[in-house]
């Protein structure tokens, strides 16, 4: 009996909950987090994050690692990956993939996700008060498999003029992501999980994914499980998005659905995203846009990146700081005259950030000079 209890306690230890233990890069009460500025609007938005953190005396130090998207070697991204392995947590902007370069130069973002095995991409789309949208009362959690599927980067030209791209679906990863989805749903008190697929066409691939979801669902009788074909899903999303609760899906459909949902709640500037693995976590904006056309013009919306940094603070168990910044952001959202161009206003990024900092200060928190 004691052997059994020992084994079951071992299982409990190795069986990780979605919200992981904070990483060990903590010294003297201060955490170290890897920061990857990326391209486009990434650097300026992350500077604002640092500004806000400095102002609110958040005990986080950033280790900045630059990744140059213009070179073909993978040294930069490997350095970044090593830094993340060391620190356990990262905040990043999107690294551009120049598809004028040779196809062997793979997407750096994808490389990061697969090397660190960040298998779950989690995005919470919520209608924000103060932002005008066509649909109201949206509250959808999207859990997207982040490492395989169509993003396996396995392509070859077997005959000249004919290219094959492989989409890989494995039982392990499908079970893993389904398990993550159900655990998260239970943890957040959600009632329903919907699997999005195209198993009527990709019978083996998506069929396997669906089967794995069903298997995991049987272990969660308190949560309703259903499935929907991806094209019907997008149609339902634009007509009645309120019907969705938690959605789980393979990589590419996740890309489409998360972008549709982000558009429904107000655009790419508002939604934060997180990539979780068993050991590491990387936070970024949900729709991963480089935003080259609006870079360095002080018009980008800092909300998504700031909310992502709040998610990171929650992950580091710095809950007070996270909620103080988050409340300040939501209060700022209510000021329509401060809205940036992407949500229909004419405000500048710096105005928004200053207002957020003023809100933080007004709550009586300890702040530094600004």
């Amino acid at each position: 009996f004691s052997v059994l209890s020992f084994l079951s306690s071992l299982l409990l230890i190795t069986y990780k909950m979605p919200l992981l233990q904070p990483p060990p890069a903590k010294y003297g009460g201060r955490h170290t987090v890897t920061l990857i500025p990326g391209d486009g609007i990434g650097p300026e938005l992350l500077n604002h994050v640092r500004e806000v953190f400095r102002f609110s005396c958040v005990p986080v130090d950033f280790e900045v690692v630059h990744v140059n998207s213009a070179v073909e070697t993978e040294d930069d991204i490997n350095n970044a990956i090593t830094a993340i392995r060391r620190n356990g947590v990262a905040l990043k902007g999107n690294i551009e993939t120049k598809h004028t370069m040779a196809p062997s130069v793979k997407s750096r973002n994808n490389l990061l996700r697969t090397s660190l095995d960040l298998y779950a991409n989690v995005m919470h789309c919520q209608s924000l008060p103060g932002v005008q949208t066509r649909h109201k009362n949206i509250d959808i959690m999207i859990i997207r498999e982040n490492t395989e599927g169509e993003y396996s980067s396995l392509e070859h030209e077997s005959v000249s003029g004919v290219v094959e791209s492989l989409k890989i679906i494995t039982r392990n990863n499908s079970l893993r992501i389904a398990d993550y989805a159900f655990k998260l749903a239970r943890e957040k008190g959600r009632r329903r999980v919907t699997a999005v697929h195209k198993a009527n066409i990709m019978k083996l691939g998506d069929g396997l994914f669906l089967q794995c979801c069903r298997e995991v669902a049987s272990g969660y009788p308190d949560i309703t499980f259903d499935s929907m074909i991806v094209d019907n899903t997008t149609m339902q999303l634009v007509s009645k998005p309120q019907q969705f609760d938690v959605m789980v899906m393979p990589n590419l459909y996740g890309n489409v659905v998360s972008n549709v949902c982000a558009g429904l709640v107000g655009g790419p500037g508002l939604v934060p995203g997180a990539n979780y693995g068993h050991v590491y976590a990387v936070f970024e904006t949900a729709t991963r846009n480089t935003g080259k056309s609006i870079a360095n013009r002080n018009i980008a919306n800092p909300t998504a990146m700031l909310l992502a940094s709040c998610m990171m603070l929650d992950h580091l168990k710095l809950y007070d700081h996270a909620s103080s910044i988050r409340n300040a952001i939501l209060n700022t959202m209510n000021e329509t005259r401060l809205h940036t161009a992407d949500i229909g206003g004419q405000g500048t990024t710096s105005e928004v950030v200053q207002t957020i900092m003023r809100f933080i200060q007004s709550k009586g928190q300890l702040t530094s000079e600004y």
Partner: protein
Amino acid sequence: MAAGSAWRSMLSQVVGGAVRRPALSSFSRGMQTVTLIPGDGIGPEISSAVMKIFETAKAPIRWEERNVTAIKGPGGRWMIPPDAKESMDKSKIGLKGPLKTPIAAGHPSMNLLLRKTFDLYANVRPCISIEGYKTPYTDVNLVTIRENTEGEYSGIEHVIVDGVVQSIKLITEDASRRIAEYAFEYARNNQRNSVTAVHKANIMRMSDGLFLRKCREVAENYKDIKFTEMYLDTVCLNMVQDPTQFDVLVMPNLYGDILSDLCAGLIGGLGVTPSGNIGANGVAIFESVHGTAPDIAGLDLANPTALLLSAVMMLRHMGLHDYGNKIQTACFDTIRDKKVLTKDLGGNSKCSEFTADICRRIQDLD
């Protein structure tokens, strides 16, 4: 009003620019044969609704009904029944209702089989807001052109080892060039200003990269039409925020499937969206793209609008613009009037009542 006239001008052009219309003697004089495939579920009832409306409008169409089921031919390959194939080869024009596709089992999708049989390489779906049918999105006026033969729907899948499945996405130079050429020809023939290629070449470097390269090459020959390229996720993001910025979209199979349904959702769903499939040898099959709706099959509740609008697209393709306009006007008037709408359009009339109202309007128009 703007959307209405946009509909009229849009559908009044020949669908399928790249296809040279064959000698029209058989079209203009006498009855033209069209292969009708009623389909499953609500298919038969909406097909009879369309036939009734055409009869009232006195359109010179002779329907040849055929059923399409998957049968195993010699050599073990799945194929459609030979009489259906023969009928289509002769008439060249088809109208199809919804066909059932079983999930994750048995034979390949029937729709896929039809496409492969007739090499229907282009799926054209004009999505234009219908005045009188309100959705949160107004003034939508775009066309999705989707490559219909290869891509992710090649149907090639293997189990590598137990628990690992691989699906192959195939992109070829020829198919990409063909669809790009079709898209630009269509844009030119229908007075559209720009063509946008939708892709994910940042992740699928070689396959979507090839597709994109071909689109760029073809764009060189059509300098009068603006060519842009956009990532799939950016298109989705922008589409739900501001669909008016898009014009003609060309893309490989899977993205086309998702995006065309997304756009159909913007204008009111599959119950009101027409669709045409253009093939290589002058063959064109027009279809309603909604499902078979087995829950309302046989109950006289179905909405025949999608099949009817596809049939109107077909009439225009055949050069019978007057009949097409008449039927379309009657259909839109009925919807705008809101008195006899089927359940999915917000009313609670029967399919037969809706059909009868359209027939009445056609007779009044004469």
